[in-house]
Structure formats: C-alpha cells, structure tokens
C-alpha cells in the first residue's frame, strides 16, 4: 500500500489513518536494520536528494541510512545562507536540482514554508526534514513510534513538552501528532518562549515545570538553542536550568513509570540532567533507532505512483 500523497510536508494535514499506515510500515522495516546484510532492493534505481540548507547531522544521516538500506541512490547537498545572499531565487535552486531528475527530495531549511514552496513547483516528492519553527514531521512520527513501543499505546497518555516552544518545529509536529492519536498535551516553558495563542492548537500551557509535568506519562525535553536567539528570552542558562531543567527532583511529580524523550542533540546539564538523560526512563537512543525505520517507511510510501495531494 502507498500513501495517496505526493509530499510529506507536515503532520497537520495527515489523517490518523495515514499516520497509522506510516507507523505500521516502519514496524515492518525495523527488522531490516538488525540483519547481517542491512539492505533490501525496494528503492533500487530511485534517487533521493538530501537538500539541507541548515546544519544537521542526525536527521541527514538518518535519512541517508534509510535510503541506502532501501537501495536508493542518496546524494547530499548542503547549502548555506539565504537566496537573497546568493542572488539566486529559491525557485532557480530548486529547478536546477529538479533538472537532475531526483525522485524524492528530503528538505531541511532554516525558513518555515520552504518545503511547501518546493512541493508546489517541483515534480519530485518533497519530504520535510524540518522547516524553520514550523514542522518536523518525521521526528513526530518516530516519537509516536517510540511512545507506542514503550507504553503500548498513545491514546489517553499525558505528554508534556518542555522548553522553547516558540522556536520548536518538533513541538509543533508533536502537538499535531499527539492530538490526532488521542493523547493529552501540555507545553511548559518560560512565558517568553510560549508562542501566542498556542492553546488554540489544543494544548494546556504551564510556565511552571512541576505543574507542567504533573501526572505526565511522557516528557519531551526540547533543546535550548541559544545560538538562534537574539536578546535571549531568559536571563541565563543557569537560571533556565534551575527553573526548567529536568532533574530527579523535578521528576518526582510525574508518574513513577514516566519516560523521557529528547530530539537531540542534548545540552547536558542545561535542559536535562545527565542522571536523567542516561537514566532507565530515557528513550533518547530508541528515538534515534526508530528514526531510521520511520524514514525508510516514508521514503517507501512516497516512492510509488504519485498521488494528487501532499500530506
């Protein structure tokens, strides 16, 4: 079975059924990565371009491995800076890549909406690998997979997302994904990092870490990205860590069987205490492993005959 979609641009427009299809498919691909010969011929002859306009090691490598395990030819292109700085329009860049005939383009960009821009103008399938502060759909999908593995279900769980919600595409994709799957979502962080009217996305908001994670089944910690911020919305990393850092003490209010997730890379000692990051309830490495399976599934499901609409 294939997705009747050309592109995967975000979780927002996905149906629950489509999410289930991706999760089920990923599960069947999981086994391939444990074989002696980690390769199947499924996407032989297909070309995948990883088009990254922003630094990324984890996501790019994960897509590259996913493509290679399915026997696709994977090419990495990194471009820095804006179209304005280059003097070339984004459309020109895109058309040049299209001229090389890729089947799938995995796009990471520092600006929100770039995958949508490409999807509406190119024939190749576009997979959003993170666009600005908008969405990072494969991250949310791998998070769903990881939660389901750990908890046996998603519906009915309390999930708290903690940190810089304003700048987080991981938070946005997860809010959409978790709501669609029937979980209850709370976001927590400094008021200066909670974007306007976020409660309309169907979440509870707390500026108090302890209240924010009370009775949580799952806690997702977000990376504090100080490098992105001018006029920091919090005074010091030390104070951030004191108020919003997840340590054993803070965890006491959560459920005893709470699990901890983090999209990486972890700022040890800032948003998360090493004791917690490495503790028994940490699923951080399972997330990375599942990432490969999810991306194999997405590449596979979008590589068939093209559907009309995008995800």
């Amino acid at each position, binding site marked *: 079975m294939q997705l009747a979609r050309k592109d995967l641009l975000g979780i927002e427009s996905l149906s629950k059924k489509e999410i289930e299809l991706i999760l089920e498919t990923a599960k069947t691909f999981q086994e391939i990565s444990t074989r002696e010969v980690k390769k199947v011929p499924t996407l032989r002859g297909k070309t995948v371009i990883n088009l990254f306009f922003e630094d990324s090691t984890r996501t790019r490598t994960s897509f590259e491995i996913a493509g290679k395990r399915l026997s696709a030819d994977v090419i990495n292109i990194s471009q820095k800076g804006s179209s304005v700085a280059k003097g070339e329009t984004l459309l020109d860049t895109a058309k040049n890549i299209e001229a090389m005939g890729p089947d799938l383009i995995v796009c990471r960009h520092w600006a929100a909406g770039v995958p949508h821009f490409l999807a509406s103008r190119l024939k190749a399938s576009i997979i959003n690998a993170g666009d600005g502060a*908008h969405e990072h759909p494969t991250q949310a999908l791998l998070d769903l997979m990881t939660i389901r593995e750990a908890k046996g279900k998603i519906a009915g769980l309390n999930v708290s997302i903690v940190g810089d919600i304003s700048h987080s595409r991981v938070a946005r994709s997860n809010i959409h994904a978790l709501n669609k799957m029937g979980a209850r979502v709370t976001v927590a962080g400094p008021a200066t990092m909670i974007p*306007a009217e976020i409660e309309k996305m169907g979440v509870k908001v707390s500026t108090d870490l302890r209240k924010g994670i009370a009775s949580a089944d799952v806690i997702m910690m977000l990376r504090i990205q100080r490098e992105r911020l001018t006029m920091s919305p919090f005074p010091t990393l030390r104070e951030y860590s004191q108020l919003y850092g997840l340590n054993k003490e803070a965890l006491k209010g959560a459920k005893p069987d709470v699990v901890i997730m983090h999209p990486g890379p972890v700022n040890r000692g800032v948003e998360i205490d090493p004791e917690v990051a490495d503790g028994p309830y940490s699923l951080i490495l399972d997330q990375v492993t599942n990432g490969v399976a999810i991306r194999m599934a997405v590449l596979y499901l979008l590589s068939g005959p093209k559907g009309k609409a995008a*995800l």
Partner: protein
Amino acid sequence: MRLIIKNGHLIDPKNRRNGRFDLLIEEGKVRDILKAGHTVASADVIDAKGCIVSPGFIDLHVHLREPGYEYKETIRSGTLAAAAGGFTSVCCMANTNPVNDNASITEYILKKAKEEGTVNVFPIGALSRGLAGKELSPMGELKKAGCVGFSDDGKTVQNSRLMRLALEYAKTFDAPVISHAICSDLAHGGVMHEGFVATKLGLPGIPSAAEDIIISRDIRLAETTGARLHIAHLSTAEGVELVQKAKKKGIRVTAEATPHHFTLTDETVEAHPPGTAAKPSQDGASPYDTNTKIMPPLRSEKDRRAIVEGLATGVIDAIATDHAPHALVDKEIEFDSAAFGIVGLETALSLSLQLVEKKKLTMKKMVELLTINPARIVGLKKGGLEPGASADVVIFNPSLSCKIDPAKFYSKSKNTPFGGMKVKGVVKYTIVGGKVIYQV
C-alpha cells in the same frame, strides 16, 4: 477641444453631486455640469451609460521605484498601472535610490513624470536625510521642488525626538508628516501578524502593539506640536480607536487604509482565499505565499472589521494602496527573506467596490475616500469636478464582472495575492487634464 461625458451617473462628493449629469470638458478643464439630456455642439462624446463618472482617484501611497529600482517599476509603468486602476494622481514615497531627500531628486522624478508618466505625480519627500532616521531632510527645499508631504515610510522614525522635530518643522510648510507606524524593536524580525496563524506556521510575529505604540506616540507629538499627522495604512483595531479619540480631541490627525487590510486577514498566509489562484500543492491551497507578506501585516478578522468600520464612520479618511512592486527575485524565495508588499493600483477599485456591494460603504462614501479626502490631506487642488477644475476623471462600470489577472497588469511587477479572484468593477476611461489616457 471639447469633450462631453454623457449618460453616466456623476458622483462628486466635493461638490455634493450624486445623480445623472453630463460633464462638459474644455481645454483640459471642467467647463460645465449639465442636466442629463443636453446636446452640445461640436464636442467629442463619451457614452458613460451604466457607469459611474467620478473625479479621478488619488492615491496617497505608492512606490514608483524610480530612480534606482527600475527592475521593479518605473514612473512610466507605475503611472500606467495607476491609469488602469482609475487613479489620476499618485503620491510616491521617497525610498528610491538615491533617496528623495533633496530637490534634485524631486525634480528628476517630476521631470520623468512629465516626460513619461501618464497621471499626475506628487512626490513625498524623505523626513530624514537618507531615510536614516538621524537628521531632518531639507523640507523647505523639498516642498519648493514639489513634495506634498514628508515621510520615511517603511523606515519608521524610531527616535521620538526626531519625530517631534519633523512635525514641528513641517508645520511651517503646512505639509503633513506621514507615519508608517511600526516599532522596530517590537516587530523584531517578524514577518506576519502575531497570533494563532503565525504560531501554527512557525513564523515570527509582529504584534499589533508594535503599530499601536508608534501611533500613540505620534498622535501625542502631533498634539504637542499642533502639526498635521497622517497615519499610513492603519491595520489594527486599537489603531482605529486611537485615531478616533485623537480626532475627538481636535488633534490634527488623518489616516488611510489599504484594500488588502480591509479585505484579507492573517489566515490568508496559511492558505489562499477560495476562488483565487492557489498553486496546486497540498489540500488545494498553498501556504506561505510571499504575496501575503506585507508591512504592516495582514491582521486578524477583528482588526479587518474595525478598519471597514473606520472607513464607514470617517475615522479613516482615505483608501490608499501602498502599491509596492517587487520582482520575482524579491518574492520567489523563502518567506522569511522575501520583500514586504504587494502591488495595489490595479485592484483597488474592485476591492473597494466589494465594500459597497456588501453595503459597508455607500458608493458616494467610497468615491470620497478615493478622491476629495486624500486630496485634502496633501493639499491638492483636486478631487472635485467643479467648473474650472482640472478635468481628472474616471469612468467605471461598478457591476461588470471580471477576474483579476496579474499577467495583464500594466505594473512591471505582478506580486499580488488577488490573482484569479472574481470581482466586479471595470475602469472604462481614465482622463487626466481632459485627455483620455486609458480606455478599455
């Protein structure tokens, strides 16, 4: 040469005419207004049956881009676009390259307009030298050369003392200071209205407060100085309230609103309004269209309604387009990096007529907002069709349906979110100084 415009419905708010009159033009001026049915010997005849005949529209706020950005627009293409939209006079902003902050640039613009332009061009001089927000521009010299107002437009004067000095100094020349009110500290990298849609799209927001704070400041400074302040492209509900209160207090403040702010909201950034040319991407709509990136940004529905209300009650004095042509290289890029602004001259009438059709404005009120009111703000002896007035006239059919087609724009740039939209209202003739410069 004599020209008579017959069988039309004349609306001339300045001279309190609203009915079936014929308009006789001679030697470039209005000669007479006649009861319908008169015959006039040896005159050319324009049959305006089914049409409104009105003073030519006056746009307080356009960017003609010349000199310096001729790849976006020229005085020739911009004034052609104006003519096609029914405008007979336009006021062009100073953010050219070089900036219009001295008489030689004003003279250059006016010379070009005379040689290549089709409608009347009235430059707005820079408020500060180089639009740098540091030192006053030579307003006396600029006024003498032909500037009718002063503004740094998009580069809002952030320094309150400079704004005070500008208002005080401009008073001598009885020219308005025009404020594009955005506090740059608060707008800080924002690309759309701050609110739910921006949050969902992950785009940095521009809070309404960024606008309201500067409007408050400038109104207060207008009160202190007794000078004339004009607020450009008002976009927030609170801004409308501030202007209303100021007017009640007797402060000399006027305001304009754009067709896009009274037609669209921030939701347009997420997806095109139905019936417009959405690119076939996902779910039939294309989010992040850079033609929805405008400063001030498209606001909430509450704000949009307040703007419409403000136009109807007279709190807002004029409809102005903020015609901002940008080439593909400025727009076919990341939303964050794309230039702010859209073209507006060729869509203003049909969008304004939507307010008439929805009974938010009377036809007379709409004409007032496009003619005599803007004329008064910048002190032009235009906007009415009394005998002796320059024969600047627009003849339009308000009920003829059409589809907005950017490919047919006279403007060099096609950056509009309204492409493909079905609207009503077609300009049939535009007449400047008695000469037909545009006709369908």
